[in-house]
Structures are given as C-alpha cells and as structure tokens.
C-alpha cells in the first residue's frame, strides 16, 4: 500500500506517545529527588498524549481500508 498519509500519521502518533512516556519517566525521577507524590504527568505531557491519540485515531480509521457497500446493485462497475 506504500506510505500513505494515514500511515505516517500513525507513526508520528506512536512516536509522540513514546516521547511522552520518556518525559513522564524523567518527571518521575525528578519527583523522586524532591520527594513529592505523583499526582499526574505535567501539562505538556498530557497535551502530547492528546495529540498522539488524535493522530493514532486518524491513522486507525484511514489505514485499514475503506468500507464497501453491501447492497448488491449499488456498486460502480460491478
């Protein structure tokens, strides 16, 4: 199928998720030094996760293929 736009979007979304995971790990290391509790990842990580989710959702909808009509007489050139 080649490198369609949806495929690239999914790849970038997964990269965003990995980067967010890395940032959260570093944030937790920082919390361990200052001995605070982990109440949630920092705001920019949450934004990055949402962006990654949107990209991956778009990739999940466009990459697997299109819907084909199940009516027997409505397709073109069938």
């Amino acid at each position, binding site marked *: 199928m080649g490198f369609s736009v949806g495929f690239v979007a*999914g790849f970038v*979304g*997964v990269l965003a*998720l990995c980067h*967010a*995971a890395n940032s*959260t*790990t570093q944030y*937790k290391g920082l919390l361990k030094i200052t001995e605070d509790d*982990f109440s*949630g*990842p920092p705001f920019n*990580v*949450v934004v990055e*996760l949402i962006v*990654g*989710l949107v990209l*991956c*959702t778009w*990739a*999940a*909808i466009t*990459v*697997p*293929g*299109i*819907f*084909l*009509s*199940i*009516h*027997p*007489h*409505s397709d073109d050139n*069938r």
Partner: protein
Amino acid sequence: MAGHGESEKKSSDAVNDLQTFRAENLQSNMKVIYYSRTFLSIIGGVIAGILGFTGLTGFVFYFLMMAITSVALIAKAKFSIHTYFDSWNRVLLDGFLGGLMSFVLFWTFAYDIVHIF
C-alpha cells in the same frame, strides 16, 4: 447472471435489499472494524499506563476509548450504517472484549515501564 462474482444469500428479490447482500463486502468491513478497534485498544492501553491509571479508572478509560472508536467508525461510514453493515451491533459492539485483552496487556506494560522501572 451467476458468473459476476456476487454471492447472494437468498434468491434475488429486487424489492427488499435486506434479503440479499454481499457477504464478502460485509466480511471485509468487519475486518476493517477489527483492525481499527485492536489498534486503538493498544494505543489506549499505552496512554492509560503513561497517565498512571490504576484499577477502575483504567477500565473506565477503556470504555471511553471504545466509545471514541465507535463514533469514529460511524463517522467513517458517513452515518449510513445500513449501506455497509446489516445491523448496528456490528459497528458498536463487535471486537469489544477482544480489544479489552490487548488494552490490559499494554496498560500493564506501559505502567511498568514508566512508573516502576
């Protein structure tokens, strides 16, 4: 007219379209739904692990992810479900529990990587 690759379930009745439909297209559509749901379950699991959800919160997040997936699939079908599927249940419920297994697997995996190691 039998040699054109159509697979009809019952004898042709041109008036009632629900009686005959293309089974291979329906199967192809079901496969598309399955791939989409599985991929988004995995992504949802990774996000739940990163955010540090535990217990019931994680499962609530899974239901939220599946709701988003259902809405996205219905939008992909341009809101006319009966053109592509024979019942609403296929779009809304199919693949729900299978995705749950993948979700829990990647949720545990991501949570361990980010929060424990």
